[in-house]
């Protein structure tokens, strides 16, 4: 059996509900004299799974089911409240890539900023800049400040940097949802190349066909729990069935 690269065991996570959070010195000072309720929203409850070397694992679930929070915990961006996360390989997460550029810098400077955050050296980045711009089809706009980019152009640039920065494990949140048909095709081809090259993948998608086409097996998350695990096809079918059911708690806010 292939060794595990990520082991998640009994992970739970909750957040304080924003409406009752105290956010200023003034509010904290006033609350010395009156108590405010501290309500916690449970987002993940005792989630366990493992990702094996060279495996492509899909993660499906409705909005607010805890997918993005789980990816952030696995990526080391959020800590878990309980449980264990063991990561035995270098992770490259591709999360929230449509947002978060320095608008006053051009594409080349932003590539260096995001690339170094993702663990690339400046030498690697300078050698790869042309390839990144070509992948994003933005060679002509290399010296244009990001404030002048459309959201689609900015997202293409982000994906191009992230795909180039992949180390061992790639974690993707809603990949293939960006750009025109040609760009999606290039992303899918790059994903297949990385998978064939032995990289492990953890892929979140709302699209059953994507999970079925790109994953070896998958998990279905609902209300912070894994309710089904199996082949990618089986999970995609179960997800479609789930969509026609009544959500268990319509008041549940979206996970962060």
């Amino acid at each position: 059996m292939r060794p595990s690269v990520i082991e998640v065991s009994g992970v739970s996570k909750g957040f304080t509900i924003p409406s009752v959070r105290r956010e200023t010195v003034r509010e904290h000072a006033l609350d010395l004299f009156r108590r405010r309720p501290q309500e916690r929203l449970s987002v993940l409850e005792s989630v366990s799974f493992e990702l094996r070397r060279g495996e492509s694992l899909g993660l499906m679930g409705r909005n607010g089911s805890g997918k993005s929070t789980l990816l952030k915990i696995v990526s080391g961006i959020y800590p878990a409240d309980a449980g264990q996360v063991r990561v035995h390989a270098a992770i490259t997460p591709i999360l929230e890539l449509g947002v978060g550029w320095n608008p006053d810098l051009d594409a080349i400077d932003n590539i260096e900023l995001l690339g170094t955050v993702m663990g690339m050296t400046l030498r690697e980045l300078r050698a790869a800049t042309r390839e990144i711009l070509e992948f994003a089809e933005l060679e002509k706009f290399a010296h244009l400040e990001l404030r002048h980019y459309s959201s689609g152009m900015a997202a293409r640039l982000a994906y191009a940097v992230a795909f180039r920065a992949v180390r061992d494990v790639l974690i993707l949140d809603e990949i293939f949802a960006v750009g025109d048909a040609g760009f999606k095709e290039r992303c899918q081809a790059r994903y297949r190349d990385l998978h064939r090259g032995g990289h492990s993948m953890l892929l979140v998608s709302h699209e059953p066909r994507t999970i079925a086409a790109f994953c070896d097996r998958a998990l279905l998350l609902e209300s912070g729990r894994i309710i089904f695990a199996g082949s990618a096809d089986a999970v995609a079918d179960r997800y479609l069935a789930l969509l026609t059911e009544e959500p268990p708690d319509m008041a549940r806010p979206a996970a962060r």
Partner: protein
Amino acid sequence: MVSVATTHVQQGQGRFAGLVWTLIRTDFKTRYHGTLGGFVWALLKPLTMFLVLLAVFSYVFASEPQYKFDLIIGLFLYEFFQESTKAGLLSIRAKGYLLTKAKFPSWIVVVTSASNAVITLALFSCVLVTFLALTGRAPTPLGVALYALYQALFFAIVAGFSLAASVLFMRYRDLNQVWEVITHAGFFIAPIIYPIGILPERVHAYLYAWPPTPIILFSRSVLLDGRTPSAFAHLLLFAVTAIIFGSGALIYRARAPRVLEEL
């Protein structure tokens, strides 16, 4: 019983060297983005400010030739303190878009946030020492070395404050306004526009408790008067620096793991 454990493969501290350099370079570039003269302005600013202040104060305080230098050193050092602590306090919020992309230590963005203020202070220091040398008031090599040491300690104080304030700001969103009021009041606590000698000696200890005060007074002493503060005074400065940096690091360490949840 709840147990929490997270272990990630270590990717080596060396990989952050490129990130540190890129953050400093892009912060510098962003600051002077679109300005007339671009980054050359960054070099000219300390020089022109120095010359303007020198010309004005030479005229206004013609009878007190020493006072204008005291004032200029005080103003520049205090501006460094205000600018760098403000940038440090806001740093995690400002760079949140990078911190949520991948796992890397957030202290890097906190410490590098002072880079623009450090560059300005370094250039000002070069201009000041050069001017003093050209006008026959060259400080001794020991004086210059001690001045550099004081600025390094000043940076450590700023870093300690910034580590704590950057994570606390995510919880207390009006902390920047509170700090702004404190630094404005602190301008008059530090003996910048007045000589400390005009105040009764019994209040000096309170003035020295405000970190910019000893840095400004010691810097003036070694550069302008050629006097080295006592060993005990140095010991106190080191102790204050260690306490501020240590406290800041402890607060940061306690709050940093969950700070990104507040973004």
